[in-house]
């Protein structure tokens, strides 16, 4: 079904029509403007850090702003530790739930599960952070027998649940896009529904599931409040095996916790914007990669 072609009315040029179309076009393309503005102002406020301190300092292992040490490595590694752990938890849970909702669950279970997952997506991050502090962290401390429950693992646990709605809904769309004929073919070969799901349907939805993981990753790495409230915020290099069960500090938490206390235009201020640039670039790359898979038309062989 193509769209109707623009109708021409040569008798009276429609200035109103032209004005409205132009306005709508400007409103739409303002989105590109906003992305450029975000990048411009991050660079404007953050770029001076690259000549105010040496690269060795900037990519060093110590973040002690009061002593002029702006090593971002522990923060970057901290973000990656928490985020990757979160995705490792969320991926199996998310894919299993998506498969259950799309392929297995009876209607009444689907009617309960889907709204619940939407509710999870709506819970503000500061509320989950508060819950993490008051309920999850004490639990983690008791189970691990650690001195504190505010650890990278606690953050990853909360983050995993925050990434779940994204992962589940994108994975569900991916499963939905697999033609019904694939399932019929699997069943007709004598495979059980279970075998068909894991050997035919899920592999066919592979690229969509990768997109789901990418978008979940992007969401998790940028998450701020919940992570800041439950990870303990110690800027140490998470290199040892037990780092997961110790306090850690992420890039986002550093910006949120310290920006309120710095003087505008100071080296520390520029350094925090510098971390903002790093975050912006990382999420830009992750989302652009996810977008590439979205732009690709899904394979639609046969009847659905």
């Amino acid at each position, binding site marked *: 079904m193509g769209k*109707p072609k623009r109708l021409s009315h040569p008798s009276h040029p429609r200035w109103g029509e032209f004005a409205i179309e132009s306005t709508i076009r400007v409103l739409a393309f303002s989105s*590109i403007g906003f992305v450029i503005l975000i990048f411009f102002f991050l660079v404007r406020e953050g770029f001076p850090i690259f000549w105010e301190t040496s690269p060795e300092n900037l990519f060093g292992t110590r973040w002690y702003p009061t002593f002029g040490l702006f090593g971002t490595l522990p923060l970057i590694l901290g973000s990656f530790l928490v985020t990757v752990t979160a995705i490792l938890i969320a991926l199996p849970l998310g894919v299993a739930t998506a498969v259950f909702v799309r392929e297995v669950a009876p209607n009444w279970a689907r009617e309960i599960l889907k709204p619940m997952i939407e509710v999870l997506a709506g819970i503000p991050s500061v509320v989950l952070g*508060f819950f993490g502090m008051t309920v999850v962290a004490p639990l983690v401390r008791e189970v691990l027998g650690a001195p504190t429950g505010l650890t990278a693992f606690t953050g990853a646990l909360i983050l995993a649940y925050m990434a779940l709605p994204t992962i589940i809904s994108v994975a569900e769309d991916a499963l939905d896009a697999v033609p019904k004929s694939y399932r019929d073919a699997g069943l007709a070969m004598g495979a059980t529904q279970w075998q068909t799901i894991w050997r035919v349907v899920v592999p066919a939805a592979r690229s969509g599931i990768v997109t789901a993981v990418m978008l979940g990753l992007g969401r998790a790495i940028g998450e701020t409040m919940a992570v800041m409230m439950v990870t303990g915020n110690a800027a140490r290099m998470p290199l040892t095996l037990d780092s997961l069960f110790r306090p850690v500090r992420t890039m*986002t938490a550093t910006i949120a916790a310290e920006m309120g206390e710095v003087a505008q235009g100071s080296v520390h201020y520029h350094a925090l914007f510098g971390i903002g640039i790093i975050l912006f670039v990382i*999420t830009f790359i992750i989302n652009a990669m996810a977008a590439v898979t979205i732009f690709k038309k899904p394979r639609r062989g046969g009847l659905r």
Partner: protein
Amino acid sequence: MINRHLVQRLGFTLLGVISLIVVLPILFVIGNIVVRGIGAINWEFLTAMPRGGMKAGGIFPAIVGTLLLVLGTAVVAIPVGVGGAIYLAEYARDTFWTRILRLAIINLAGVPSVVYGLFGLGLFVLFLQFGTSVLAGSLTLAIMTLPVIISTAEEALRAVPGEFRLVSASLGGTRWQGIRSIVLPQALPGIITGIILGLLRAAGETAPILFTAAAFYLPRIPRSLLEPTMALPYHLYVISTQVPGMPPRIQYGTALVLLTIVLSMNAVAAIIRSYFRRRREW
């Protein structure tokens, strides 16, 4: 060989159990906050200024602040977002620039909330000299909300069958007349749902307003758009991490009020969607 039907039955059970593992904590979070917060809720808590270093009194200015920020966000984000969606769904062809536009929207959706805060600080607070204010916070939240509104509204517009546009055109209507009087009204429930989903995100966010709008302690209603304000999510952050010896009753009460606002917006969106989906004639 193991009975493969038994394997299937066990597998399906496992999937069900995992779904429960996903869903039960959500119920537990909500239940925990409702049970422990409900005792704090009374008329004074909702309508009084905070007293005694926020350890007594109410959270009125935080509630009003959040409503003001959401209102400011709506004023900016709705026209820009719906306009963008109309362009993408009704006018845009698949050109290089449209692809760049879609990439930009996907990336706006992915920019971390704290980076929006930095951007708002750089552009609105400092460069445009709005200061830490309701205005700067609303504009920052509006840009953050845009991609949610654009993508849901575009989907709603695309769901309207092409025949509707053809009929309008066949009666001599221009493209915009068709959109305004046929397509938009049909897509309205979906668009409103998208707007509510976007605004509820704005209502719950803390990081974007940290350095653009939020006041630590300001026991009054802002007198103009250029004043800072208290806000519920930031207030919850402050009283749960920055103020020692805070009574848990007030913390849970604040969390409950925030959760109630956000989840009731969520429920309204869901009701609109399902009600109109059932009534739809196409």
